């Protein structure tokens, strides 16, 4: 970003469900992205997955109309050196995130804001271990990021105004509205939603209803948009379990201990939409 060109330069770490979704949102809003992924296979097929998400955005009529920006993929954090904002969207594991954000801090200049897209790890917990804790803030984009216009924003107790302003400019460029909430395990949305999905899975585990019937009741009677178990498939059941573990460890709430059925699905590789099967099966998603 310069005075002549106010478009922020964005780097995204992790080309999983969220990295791809956030990158799609940025590109179709004319914001160029450097996407860093360590897994070679994921890095190789990221452009095709983004292409597909861009088609979905067009199908759903949410393209911004701006010319599409350039995508660069990279294998190392060194590729984000010029970014104004770096969003980490890597695996939900505090140690991995701290290691990656520390490396980023040593690579970028000190004006660069760092964003974590964590579902559940408190921002202050991550910030405390970083060389520049004031650069970090949480922005909880959800999936699909280009369809959901609101994001949950978490300012840590040490977050600087400069970092917050820089992220504010990015959200404006992306056409997203931020709702600021207090820091803590799972913030608002994961604290409420992930526990509820765990309960929904437990009902299926106990044999009291099928996944379809749970979702139908939650949708048709209670107005839940996709149903909790279809949402689990959309999130990725592996990521959901990681997030529930973070919540359980940090709150002691037994309702957040991932239930057996979720654990069995992760062990069986049934991770949801991204693997073609979870509570439901998906065709044409992987091609």
């Amino acid at each position: 970003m310069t005075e002549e060109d106010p478009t922020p330069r964005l780097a995204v770490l992790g080309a999983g469900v969220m990295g791809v979704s956030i990158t799609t949102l940025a590109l179709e809003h004319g914001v160029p992205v450097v996407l860093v992924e360590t897994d070679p296979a994921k890095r190789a097929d990221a452009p095709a997955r983004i292409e597909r998400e861009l088609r979905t955005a067009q199908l759903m009529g949410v393209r911004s109309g701006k010319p599409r920006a350039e995508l660069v993929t990279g294998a190392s954090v060194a590729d984000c050196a010029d970014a104004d904002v770096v969003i980490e969207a890597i695996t939900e594991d505090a140690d991995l995130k701290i290691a990656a954000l520390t490396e980023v801090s040593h690579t970028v200049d000190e004006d660069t804001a760092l964003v974590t897209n964590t579902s559940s790890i408190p921002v202050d917990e991550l910030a405390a271990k970083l060389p520049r804790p004031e650069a970090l803030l949480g922005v909880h984009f959800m999936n699909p990021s280009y369809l959901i216009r609101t994001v949950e924003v978490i300012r840590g107790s040490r977050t600087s105004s400069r970092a917050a302003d820089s992220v504010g400019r990015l959200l404006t460029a992306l056409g997203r509205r931020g709702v600021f909430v207090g820091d803590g395990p799972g913030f608002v949305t994961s604290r409420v939603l992930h526990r509820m999905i765990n309960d929904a899975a437990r009902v299926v585990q106990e044999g009291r209803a099928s996944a379809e019937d749970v979702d139908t009741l939650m949708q048709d009677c209670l107005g839940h948009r996709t149903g909790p178990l279809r949402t689990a498939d959309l999130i990725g059941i592996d990521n959901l379990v990681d997030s529930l573990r973070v919540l359980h460890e940090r709150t002691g709430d037994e309702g957040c201990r991932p239930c057996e059925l979720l654990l069995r699905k992760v062990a069986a590789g049934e991770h949801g939409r991204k693997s073609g099967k979870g509570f439901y099966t998906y065709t044409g998603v992987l091609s």
Partner: protein
Amino acid sequence: MSEPTTTPPLSAEHVRTELRRFLEERTKTDWAADTDLFATGGVSSLFAMELVVHVEKTFGIAVEGPDLRIDNFRTVNAMTDLVLRLAEAGSGE
């Protein structure tokens, strides 16, 4: 598309039947040809892209540009019109 010219043209009836079969298999619901699939209580919008990919693969067409919009996939009839139009445009080359 470069289909041989001897391939019989797609009939609306054939396209409609195939679409209803696919929808029934995937959503466990028998959809009337003029019912809005995406209206409240219907098919999730996330299923929409699956539907596009299915239609492209099954009928050998590519849905692009202004054709790629949800209104073309809202009902079995709308999809049938789209498929026939694109298939005809493709075979005319």
